[in-house]
């Protein structure tokens, strides 16, 4: 039972390069989230998705794009990386708001550590 899997685990980029972070979950969760974690700032929501084919902006969306073409996958893209995007990125998933799943917690991946030089 893999849960939430993030790839890659580590990456170093140069300013201006692009890349895509992949998140995959095998729990049939409807909701998926991308966060960034920076020292002293906790987790900040970048983008989220409430279902296949739908995405929405979170608290800090600038410089990022996302896609959810399949229910189990949620991709986070950086089109032109900047040093300010150096961070640890976490993906999470959870059930929808309805039914037995509505009070369940989020499940997190182990993160992608991204450094931009």
């Amino acid at each position: 039972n893999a849960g939430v899997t993030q790839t890659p685990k580590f990456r170093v980029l140069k300013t201006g390069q692009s890349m895509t972070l992949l998140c995959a979950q095998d729990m049939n969760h409807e909701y998926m989230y991308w966060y960034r974690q920076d020292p002293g700032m906790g987790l900040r929501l970048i983008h989220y998705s409430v279902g296949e084919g739908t995405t929405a902006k979170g608290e800090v969306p600038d410089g990022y794009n996302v896609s959810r073409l399949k229910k189990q996958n949620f991709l986070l893209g950086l089109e032109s990386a900047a040093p300010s995007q150096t961070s640890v990125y976490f993906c999470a998933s959870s059930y929808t708001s309805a039914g037995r799943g509505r009070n369940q917690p989020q499940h997190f991946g182990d993160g992608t550590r991204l450094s931009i030089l």
Partner: protein
Amino acid sequence: AQSVAQPEDQVNVAEGNPLTVKCTYSVSGNPYLFWYVQYPNRGLQFLLKYITGDNLVKGSYGFEAEFNKSQTSFHLKKPSALVSDSALYFCAVRSYTSGTYKYIFGTGTRLKVLA
């Protein structure tokens, strides 16, 4: 606006002593509160939650949390700390905005249990 505050960046406690990690919240409506733990190079792991009912909630690894509505607090506690409890702890509140559930996290408290 809904928010969560963890007033302590770090808490030090001796092994075997009781520990408390503080969390206060601000929400409109009924609060749905969560505690997560993060070990080095790992993602957040769910510890416990308060949805409704008893004010004392029991969770994983011997942790419990006390919900206090009048003080708008949800402090994490453990009667006897272990060195292995050393980690980063996050309090979170679930918000409901525009038909969507989102989670708002505190800034985290680093717990150090000293042998």
